[in-house]
C-alpha cells in the first residue's frame, strides 16, 4: 500500500516536472544576481569545503549549504536543528552531553562525520567523534557546507558519511556590532555579541564574537521522560564560545573556543537502577587556533599554508556517573599540533591540480582516568593525568581536474596517510562532472576510512591487529534548473562500509574490539527548491535502506524521511518560516518496555518562526519548536529504551545591529 502511494507520488512528480520543463526551460536565470548591490556582489561566495573555492556544481560530490539567513530566519539554536532540514539526516538525541547525527543511514557515535570550523577539524581527538549540541556559535556562522559521501581522499580518517564545514563570519563582510539575546521555555537563555572592523585600504581587520547559552532542553521527569528518570532529574546544558578572526594582508589568524558543560544523567536510566540522576557534570572544551597564509607562486599557482593547534579535552572536574555509592570523576586530556601546505595550480579550462602535505603530532590520553568519591553526594577528587601517547601523521594528497571534452570534467584524487598509530592507508576517489545548460550531473566513486583510535587497540583485552573501517561508495547525482526559480536535484547512492569495529564479549565478561561485518546503505534523495522574491521553499524526500552483511535491517534507521521548509517575507519587515519534518518508523536496538514494541513510531514535527524587522538596527523573533507539541521519540543504544524528544518550546529573541 505504502509502496503504491510512493510510486504514485513519484509519477505525479515526473509529470509535473516534465510539464514545467516544457513551459519554462527556455528562460534564463540572472535576476537574483542582478538584484544584488555592488557590495553584495563582492561577497558572493563559491564553495570552499573541497580545500579550494569551487562552484557547487563543479565539485565532484553532493554539497548542500545552510546560509546565515536560513539559520537566522528559522531560529536554529543547535547544529542538529540546522541539519534536520536536509535530506539523509537522522538523529539520536539523548538530551545529554552529546547527541548523534546519522547521515545517509549509518548510525554511529558521531565518528563517521568530520566537522570542521573554517576548514580545521573540531572532532574530539580521543574518540574521533564530533559533539552535537548548542556549543556552536550559530550567530557567527556565515554558512554551513555539508558534503555528502566519503571524503578521506582529501581529509583523511573519519570522513566516512560526509563533512560538515562551518564557515564563520569574516570581518570583510560582517563589520559593526551585533548583539542578540533570547529567552524561552525550559529556562533557555542565550546571549551573544559580535564586533567586526575592516580597513579595506590596509586590507586588515578583525572580528570577534562570543556567546553564552543555558537550557534545560525538555521535561524528561518521570512519566514525561518515559519513566526513565525521577522527579529530581537534572538535565541542563551550558555553552560558552568565542570566535576570533584577525586578517592582515595575506595572513589570517583564527581562534575558536567552545566549552560545553552539561549534565550526563540521561546517559543512564535511573529508575530501577543504582544510577542517580542528580550530580552529574560533563565539561568538555574545544580549542582550535590556526595561522593561515596564502602566497602567489606565479600567475597560475597559489600556495596556502597553515599551522594549527587543537585541544578537545574533557576537563578534570567532570562527573560522568553518580551511583548509590559514589560519584565517578572523569578526565580525558588531549591536544594536537599540525601543519598543512597546499599548492593549487590552475590553467583555466585545461587543467587543475591541488596537491598538499600535512603533518600532525597528537598527544592523546591512552585511557581516561577516573576517581571515586565515598558517597553519592560527595564530589570526587580531580583525577590525575592519565598515561599519554604521542602519535604522528604524515599525509600527502592530490586531486586533479581534467577538462576532457566540454562540458565533461574528470576528477581523480588520492591521499596517502602514514600514521604511527594506524600505519599506512591509501584512499582514492574518482568523479565525472557534466555541466551543460541547466543540467549538472555527477558520477562519483569514493572511498574513505575510519582508523581505530589508540584506545581501541588497548581497550578491554586489547587487539593490536585492528584494521580501519573502510567504505566504498558509488553515487549518481543530477541537478536541473526547471525554471528560473525552480531547481530539482536527485541523488542515488550505494555504500558499503566493511571491517566494522564491533565488541566481542567473552563468558568471563571480558571483551575486545574486533573487525567484523559490514553496513550496506542504498538509497536516493530528491530535493526541490523554489525561490521567488518573497518565497523561499524547499522540499526533500529520502529513501534509505541500511542492512548488515546478512541483509538484516540495521536498527535506528528509518527508510523514509522528508522535510518541507517554507519561508515568506512580507514587505521586508516580516519573515515567516515553517518547517515540517517527517521520519518513518525505526527499529529499536531492544524491546521498549513501555510499549512492548521493537520499533519507535514515525513522527511528524512542525517548527515555526516569525521575525519582525523593526529597523535597520533592530529585529525581534518569536520561534516555536515542536508547534504541535507532538510526543515523539528517538531510538536508543543505551540503558533507556528510547529517548523522549523536547516538547513544545517557545523562544523570544531580540537582535541589535550597528554598522
Amino acid at each position, binding site marked *: 500500500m505504502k*509502496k503504491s502511494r510512493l*510510486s504514485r507520488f*513519484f*509519477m505525479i512528480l*515526473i509529470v509535473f*516536472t*516534465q510539464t514545467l*520543463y516544457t513551459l519554462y*526551460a*527556455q*528562460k*534564463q*536565470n*540572472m*535576476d537574483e*544576481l*542582478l538584484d*544584488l*548591490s*555592488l*557590495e553584495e*556582489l*563582492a*561577497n*558572493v*561566495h*563559491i*564553495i*570552499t569545503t573541497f580545500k579550494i*573555492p569551487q*562552484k557547487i*556544481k563543479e565539485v565532484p560530490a553532493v554539497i548542500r549549504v545552510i546560509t546565515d539567513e536560513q539559520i537566522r530566519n528559522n531560529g536554529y539554536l543547535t547544529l542538529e536543528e540546522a541539519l534536520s532540514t536536509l535530506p539523509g539526516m537522522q538523529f539520536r538525541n539523548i538530551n545529554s552531553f552529546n547527541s548523534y547525527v546519522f547521515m545517509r543511514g549509518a548510525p554511529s557515535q558521531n565518528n563517521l562525520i568530520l566537522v570542521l570550523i573554517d576548514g580545521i577539524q573540531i572532532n574530539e581527538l580521543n574518540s574521533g567523534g564530533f559533539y552535537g549540541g548548542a556549543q556552536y556559535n550559530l550567530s557567527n556562522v556565515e554558512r554551513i557546507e555539508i558534503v555528502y559521501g566519503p571524503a578521506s581522499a582529501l581529509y583523511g580518517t573519519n570522513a566516512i558519511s560526509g563533512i560538515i564545514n562551518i564557515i564563520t563570519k569574516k570581518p570583510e563582510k560582517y563589520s559593526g556590532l551585533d548583539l542578540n539575546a533570547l529567552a524561552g521555555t525550559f529556562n533557555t537563555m542565550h546571549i551573544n555579541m559580535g564586533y567586526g572592523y575592516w580597513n*579595506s*585600504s590596509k*586590507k586588515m581587520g578583525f572580528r570577534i564574537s562570543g556567546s553564552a547559552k543555558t537550557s534545560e532542553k525538555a521535561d524528561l521527569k518521570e512519566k514525561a521522560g518515559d519513566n526513565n528518570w525521577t522527579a529530581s532529574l537534572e538535565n541542563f546544558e551550558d555553552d560558552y564560545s568565542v570566535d576570533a578572526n584577525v586578517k592582515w594582508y595575506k595572513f589570517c589568524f583564527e581562534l575558536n573556543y567552545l566549552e560545553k558543560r552539561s549534565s550526563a544523567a540521561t546517559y543512564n536510566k535511573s529508575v530501577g537502577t543504582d544510577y542517580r540522576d542528580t550530580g552529574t557534570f560533563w565539561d568538555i572544551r574545544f580549542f582550535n587556533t590556526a595561522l593561515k597564509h*596564502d602566497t602567489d607562486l606565479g*600567475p597560475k599557482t597559489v600556495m596556502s599554508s597553515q599551522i594549527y593547534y587543537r585541544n578537545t579535552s574533557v576537563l578534570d572536574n567532570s562527573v560522568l556517573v553518580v551511583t548509590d555509592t559514589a560519584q565517578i570523576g572523569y578526565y580525558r586530556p588531549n591536544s594536537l599540533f599540525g601543519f598543512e601546505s597546499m599548492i593549487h595550480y590552475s590553467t*583555466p579550462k585545461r587543467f587543475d591540480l591541488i596537491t598538499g602535505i600535512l603533518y600532525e603530532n597528537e598527544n592523546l590520553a591512552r585511557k581516561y582516568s577516573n576517581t571515586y568519591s565515598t558517597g553519592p553526594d560527595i564530589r570526587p577528587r580531580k583525577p590525575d593525568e592519565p598515561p599519554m601517547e604521542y602519535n604522528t601523521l604524515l599525509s600527502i594528497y592530490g586531486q586533479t581536474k581534467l577538462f576532457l571534452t566540454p*562540458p565533461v570534467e574528470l576528477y581523480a584524487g588520492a591521499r596517502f596517510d602514514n600514521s604511527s598509530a594506524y600505519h599506512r592507508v591509501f584512499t582514492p576517489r574518482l568523479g565525472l562532472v557534466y*555541466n*551543460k*545548460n*541547466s*543540467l*549538472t*550531473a555527477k558520477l562519483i566513486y569514493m572511498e574513505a576510512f575510519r582508523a581505530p583510535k589508540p584506545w581501541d587497540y588497548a581497550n578491554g583485552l586489547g587487539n593490536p591487529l585492528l584494521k580501519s573501517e573502510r567504505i566504498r561508495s558509488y553515487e*549518481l547525482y*543530477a541537478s*536541473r*534548473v526547471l525554471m528560473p526559480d525552480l531547481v*530539482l536535484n*536527485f541523488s*542515488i547512492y550505494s555504500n558499503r562500509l566493511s571491517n566494522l569495529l564491533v565488541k566481542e564479549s567473552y563468558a568471563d565478561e571480558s571483551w575486545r574490539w574486533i573487525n567484523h561485518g559490514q553496513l550496506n546503505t542504498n538509497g*536516493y534523495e530528491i530535493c526541490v527548491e523554489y525561490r521567488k522574491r518573497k518565497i523561499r521553499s524547499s522540499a526533500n524526500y529520502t529513501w534509505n535502506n541500511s542492512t548488515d552483511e546478512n541483509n538484516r535491517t540495521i536498527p535506528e534507521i528509518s527508510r523514509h524521511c522528508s522535510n518541507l521548509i517554507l519561508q515568506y517575507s512580507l514587505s521586508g519587515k516580516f519573515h515567516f518560516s515553517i518547517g515540517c519534518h517527517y521520519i518513518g518508523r525505526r527499529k529499536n536496538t531492544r524491546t521498549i518496555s513501555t510499549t512492548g514494541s521493537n520499533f519507535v513510531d514515525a513522527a511528524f514535527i512542525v517548527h515555526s518562526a516569525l521575525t519582525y524587522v523593526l529597523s535597520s538596527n533592530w529585529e525581534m523573533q518569536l520561534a516555536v519548536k515542536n508547534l504541535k507539541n507532538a510526543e515523539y521519540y528517538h531510538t536508543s543504544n543505551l540503558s533507556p529504551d528510547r529517548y523522549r524528544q523536547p516538547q513544545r518550546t517557545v523562544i523570544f529573541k531580540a537582535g541589535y545591529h550597528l554598522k
Partner: protein
Amino acid sequence: MTKKILVSFYLLFSPCVCEPNMTNLDAEYGYEVKAVFIYNFTKYINWIDDDRSPYFDIAVIGESPITEPLKQIAQKRLVCQKKIKISQLENADQIDYCHIIFIPESEKSHLKYIVSRVQNKNILIVCEIKNSLESGAMINFVPAQDKIKFEINLLAMNKSSFNPGSELLKLAVRLID
C-alpha cells in the same frame, strides 16, 4: 522498486539529453558574477553623453564565457537609457568604438597592444589579468579566497575622463591613484 527509480530518473532528466543547446543557464558562475559586476560598474561611472551609438556598447576581445551572461543582462537592463549591445571581437584591430571593453585572461599576451589601441578613447578597460593595471587597464578582477573582487587604476580612469563614484572606489581591493 530499483527499476522504477531508474526509469523515473531517466524521465526526470531526459529532456536535456535530447536538446543539448537549449538554454544558457549554465554559463560559468564566476563569469555570471563578473558580468553583473560590469553592469554594476556602469552605475558608478560618469558616461560622456554622445550620439556616436544608439546603444551602450560592450565589447569582448576574443572568446570568453563572459559573453553569454553579458548578453543575458543586455536583454534585461538598460544603461543610460540605452539598450546594451554586446560584441565579440576577434582582435584589437576590430575595435572602433565602445563604452566598455573586456579583455579576458586568454588575451594576456596582447594586453599592451589592446590597451594602446583604446587608450584615451573614453573606453573603460576591464580585465581579468594579473598586474594588468600596471599595463593601463582600469578595472581588473582578482580572485579573493572564495569571492571575486576588483582593483582600480584611478590614474588611467581619470586620463580617460572617468570619475568613478566613491562607492566603487571603496570596494576596490587595490587602488592606483
